[in-house]
């Protein structure tokens, strides 16, 4: 299978007054597993559908390899898409569903049969080839949808929230299978999700979208550790964003706390503190003083909401058996590992 990258240049789209995509530029490398992450309404699905050729036509260029596909109808793009609802045709059997795209390509019957078998084999459903879609479980339907898309050997694979209709346990299993399959085929893949854990665990790189604008592109770790802005910081994991300014190798919060920095960035006015990087101690010690307003027992950890002069700060402390931790209402002191905390300009 030929590996092609995707390049998107200056893609704009509006519905009447509403801007849905505002100047999208990105490059997805050949063979990459790439995630579009964002809340609903961020434009991530619209962008995916634009690549597949659905929905209103945007302005701008979409290149797969060297081919600009922006003006092609969906059926000429050779882009495989797996739909959120799977979109299996209920009047066709599993085999007929998978054979569909190959038949449209007017392949010889024998070739179709072998390719269908191969695709079904790949997803482990060969024995169910003659069932009707209604007779399959959700996970099986998902695999048929995948097999149907892979069978046409698309240049890129688009997955539109493919796991959202599965229950939690199956979802974890399926995402691993999906990744394994993608690695095996080496298919350039775009995966749309609103679930950061899904994006983190599967993708090589991801783009975070909000309001039709790409907020940041990078590996999951890059985005987590060095978010470009408050939105990315907040969307990828829980973040405490404290306002203030950089001064003398420290971040001086507006609440009057001084947090040491390893590489102070001039002009930064916010600092991102992850809850696990804050330690909660009894009152009186060094650190930010506050009062526990709420606590949640999460199993592996306990989450405290602490009211401070810098606003509410979320603190996660590891839980080990027998510990009781702090009660609501207790005055506590927060010690912050701020040396490598991201700063926002």
């Amino acid at each position, binding site marked *: 299978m030929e590996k092609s990258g995707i390049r998107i240049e200056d893609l704009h789209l509006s519905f009447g007054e509403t801007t849905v995509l505002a100047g999208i530029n990105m490059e997805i490398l050949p063979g990459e597993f790439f995630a579009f992450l964002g809340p609903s309404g961020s434009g991530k699905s619209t962008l995916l559908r634009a690549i597949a050729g*659905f929905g209103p036509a945007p302005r701008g260029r979409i290149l797969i390899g060297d081919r600009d596909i922006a003006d092609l*109808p*969906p059926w000429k793009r050779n882009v495989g898409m797996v739909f959120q609802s799977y979109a*299996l*045709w209920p*009047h066709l059997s599993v085999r007929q569903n998978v054979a*569909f795209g190959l038949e449209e390509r007017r392949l010889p019957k024998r070739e179709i049969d072998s390719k269908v078998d191969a695709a079904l084999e790949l997803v482990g459903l060969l024995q169910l080839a003659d069932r009707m879609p209604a007779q399959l479980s959700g996970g099986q339907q998902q695999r048929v949808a995948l097999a149907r898309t892979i069978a046409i050997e698309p240049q890129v694979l688009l997955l539109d929230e493919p796991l959202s209709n599965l229950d939690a346990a199956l979802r974890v299993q399926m995402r691993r299978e999906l990744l394994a399959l993608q690695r095996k085929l080496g298919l350039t893949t775009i995966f749309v999700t609103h679930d950061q854990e899904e994006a983190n665990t599967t993708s090589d790189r991801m783009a975070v979208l909000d309001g039709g604008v790409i907020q940041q592109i990078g590996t999951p770790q890059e985005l987590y550790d060095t978010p470009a802005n408050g939105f990315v910081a907040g969307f990828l994991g829980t973040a405490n964003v404290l306002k203030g300014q950089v001064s003398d190798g420290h971040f001086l919060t507006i609440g009057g706390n001084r947090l040491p920095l390893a590489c102070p960035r001039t002009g930064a006015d916010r600092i991102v503190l992850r809850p696990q990087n804050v330690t909660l101690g009894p009152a009186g010690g060094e650190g930010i003083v506050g009062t526990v307003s709420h606590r949640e027992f999460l199993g592996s950890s306990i989450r405290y909401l602490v009211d401070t002069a810098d606003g509410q700060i979320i603190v996660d402390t590891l839980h080990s058996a027998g510990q009781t931790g702090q009660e609501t209402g207790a005055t506590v002191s927060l010690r912050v590992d701020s040396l490598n905390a991201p700063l926002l300009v």
Partner: protein
Amino acid sequence: MSDSFQPTRPSGRFTLFPRLSGVALTGLLIAIFLMAFLILPVMQVIYVAFLDARTGALTLQNFQDFFNTNLFRESFVNSFYVSAMSVVFATIIALPLAYITTRFTFAGAAVIQSLGFIPLIMPPFVGAVAMTLLFGRNGSLNLLLDQYFGFKIPFMEGLNGVIFVQSLHYFPFILINLSASLRNIDRSMEEAAQNLGSSGLRMFRRIVFPLAMPGYLAGAALVFIKVFDDLGTPLLLNVNNMLAPQAYLRITGVGINDPMGYVISFILVAFSVFALWVSLLFMRGKDYATVQKGGGGLAKRDLSQREKVLAWGVILFILALVLSPHFGLLLLAFGTIWSFSPLPDGFTLQHFGTVFTQSSQYIWNTIIYAGSAAVIDVILGTAIAYIVLRSGLIGRKWLDYMATAALAVPGVVLGIGYLRMFHGVELPFGLGQMSSFWGLIIVALAVRRLPYALRACMAALQQVALSLEEAAESLGATKSSTIRRIVVPLMTGGILAGFVTSFATAAVELSATIMLVGRSSDAPLAYGIYLFMQSPSGRGAGAALGILAVVIVALGTYLSQRIIEKDRNRRAAAPGTDH
């Protein structure tokens, strides 16, 4: 629909499928078809209403005359009254039936389903004849009442007779639409109401019925318009103080160039369009039922023994009423002489013999005409539904409006319009005059029945998730291939339902065909029945022909129903629709 077309994308403007020249072309062709065979012919007729009969100049004088004439004002009031009362009685019949089928697990559901269809397949002419023989002043029932109890009930006299016959004939429109709406209501709606302390009839009135309102209104509007425009029933019952019969009498009278007939036609069409529009306005934003996907309908429960008896009682009573014209027809068809007696003097098979030896061409003509009309209807219906629901074609809604407007056009008006418009047009291949060409009958039937097929196709297409089409396209299927391999097969049930409704109602249609039949060898069944019924010895044979019409239509319906059921079972709980 071409897939080799390489479009330039119009930037900025929002069109769903800017590349589809094929769809645009299809839409244009359909628009031309509807213009040529519906709008223009109707215009041909009603524009006479605006002409001075003597000078041919444009005038509104005729409308002034209309409103200055007591008879016409009374006719208008009578038509309105009869239509409204027919809606009321049709509702009284349909509501319990719809309620029973949708709320309870009930063995008689199949009976009710067929109830929803049987009345529509009665040729209009014979229905009223049979009803008169059973319920008329000296009909079987009144003769028996008079003999044993010494009184008679004037079922069939005057406007009441019209209301009686019309509500029995048209209540299925309400039954079908209301049941469909009720079935679409999400079960959770009902559960929420119960959870908040509402139950029983009160809940039905406050929650269930309002949710089913759009379906009910659609059915009620249809009944209203049908009764308002209907000609055959009042004429057969010799009621002429209504608008449609007045129009007919004035247009078809000998030597009369009275423009009033055309004025009335115009008013009929305008009022019907108005009624449709009002019902649409009223329904706008209230179409809750289709918003709720799936849900499996209302929770059904078992009936207690007493309720079962009651339910069967109601159903059997309605069934007896609904089947009475068919029963009367059977008696006529197998009876020898039936005169001033509760039952015919004797029974014979002779009438069927007459029909089979003399009239097989009527049967074939009917099958060909109604069949072709229904095929045209489902093709047009599917195309229009696709264009309206799936394309961004400018003015696509107008295709829907135009096709639906056929509901508001009385058959006679269409028939006269065709005569006006197509007479003198010579067809190639020796087919002769267009206005007497049998193909025109098919076109007339197709146009008249298109709204039924269109509704069915629309509903079917709405059930097909868009992603099923997109999946096909992303796998390399062109638009036309997607339509052929995915959309149409998934619409099968709805398309078949549309086919059946069109076929069944076209098979018994008379009002437009009576104007268009060029020669008796081209005549369909309903016309044959009409001919037979014009002579004393032909009454039995006409009835026998009527029975054949009912049997043909019933068989067709049954077969399609079987196919639909099979199709539905095969892909029960289809994926792609969210649960």
